[in-house]
């Protein structure tokens, strides 16, 4: 099956692949970090006592979740310049990934927070703890336990989604595969290698997710 496989070309392009891998890694880390901020903010908005803030958060979350990521990327890529904002491809891509993952993270965090039984919150209220103290000492520590594993799952999704940035010519892993394909016409070699690297990233994150699941979910026994 692999008899016609040209490993020499893969090796020749290895520095190029490494650059793509590094970029995919950096894009993912930065986007994930920003998405966490966006997601937690959106979640706070979603649970806010003010109707208008809640409405805004719902519009954001639902409009992202109901449209394909590729459409969102193109929307920003072609839309931002028409608004007079000239943003480089890489930054556009990171913004798109941030907004997209943020919406999903908002829902993950919300699920974590609402998993804390209401009675415990009432117990906190009864002993005179204010809103922030209840968040800090009762809700967040428990929400974290059930939130971290699905967040790592979302991180895996984000890494794979970053492949779509190749379509707005951001030089990341998939883009390297496309380049190799067009320069040497060796799509099997190119995408076999690309897939292999994604698998490596996936494996690391998955191991982390499984470990955190074991470590953190023990509290759920309640």
């Amino acid at each position, binding site marked *: 099956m692999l008899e016609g496989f040209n490993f020499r070309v893969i090796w020749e392009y290895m520095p190029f692949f490494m650059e793509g891998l590094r970029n995919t890694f950096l894009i993912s880390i930065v986007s994930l970090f920003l998405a966490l901020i966006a997601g937690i903010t959106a979640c706070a908005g979603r649970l806010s006592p003010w109707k208008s803030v809640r409405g805004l958060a719902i519009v954001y979350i639902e409009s992202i979740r109901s449209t394909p990521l590729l459409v969102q990327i193109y929307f920003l890529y072609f839309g931002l310049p028409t608004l007079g904002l000239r943003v480089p491809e890489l930054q556009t891509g990171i913004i798109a990934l941030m907004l997209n993952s943020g919406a999903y993270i908002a829902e993950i965090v919300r699920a974590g927070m609402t998993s804390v*039984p209401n*009675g*415990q919150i*009432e*117990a906190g*209220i*009864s*002993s*005179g*703890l*204010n809103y922030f*103290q209840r968040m800090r*000492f*009762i809700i967040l*520590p*428990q929400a974290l*336990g059930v939130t971290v594993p699905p967040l790592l799952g979302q991180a895996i999704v984000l890494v794979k989604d970053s492949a779509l940035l190749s379509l707005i010519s951001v030089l990341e892993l998939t883009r390297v595969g496309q380049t190799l394909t067009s320069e040497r016409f060796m799509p099997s070699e190119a995408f076999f290698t690309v897939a292999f690297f994604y698998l490596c990233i996936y494996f690391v994150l998955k191991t982390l997710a499984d470990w955190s699941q074991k470590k953190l979910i023990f*509290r759920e*026994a*309640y």
Partner: protein
Amino acid sequence: MIKFNGVNKWFGKLHVLKDIDLHVTSGEVVVVCGPSGSGKSTLIRCINRLEKFQKGELFVDGTPLHDYSTNLTKLRAEIGFVFQQFHLYPHMTALQNVALAPINVRKMKRADAEALAHEKLDRVGLADKADAHPTQLSGGQQQRVAIARGLAMSPKIMLFDEPTSALDPEMIGEVLDVMVKLASEGMTMCVVTHEMGFARQVAHRVIFMDEGSLVETGNPHDFFANPQTDRAAQFISKILTH
């Protein structure tokens, strides 16, 4: 200490509290009983405004609870509340459960708060369980930790919402013992319970509720021996013969 003046509450269309007039004085132990759905839990949940009500006046320790602009955090710190389902914080040890509010609401030093927590746990007979997590404790032990958690704030009033209803029969005694001790020390207590032994032993007054109204109130001896209303007589015969 606690004064209800014509309190009314609706859940949507359901009229759950009807013209409640009740005055509980300092040091008094009041037992509230009645069939399920009669509004007794709602009644005591109003006392620290875990439930809001729509009409009437309620003063607790001089604070008007019908005025929604009053900040209740301070008042709530003075009222201990014990739930049917305990509601301990499962990610904390028994000691941390008890010390949390003293540290953060009373602004006590950690060491002082933990000393206080040890003392309160000792008082409910759980000195040796300070480092246990709630999941490692039996229901009766969890409920006693919950009582210690309330006591750690040196409350003026302790409210109990069916504290023994979720417990196995052999664990009810240990919780009631703690409550009896508390009552004998002069704590102001409102207790929703069907434990008639407890009511007879320590209550100054028994209140019988049905369908959102206070139907009958009297001292425990008279109430159990010759209830004034048919509804109360029916209820007593049911709980005493089961």
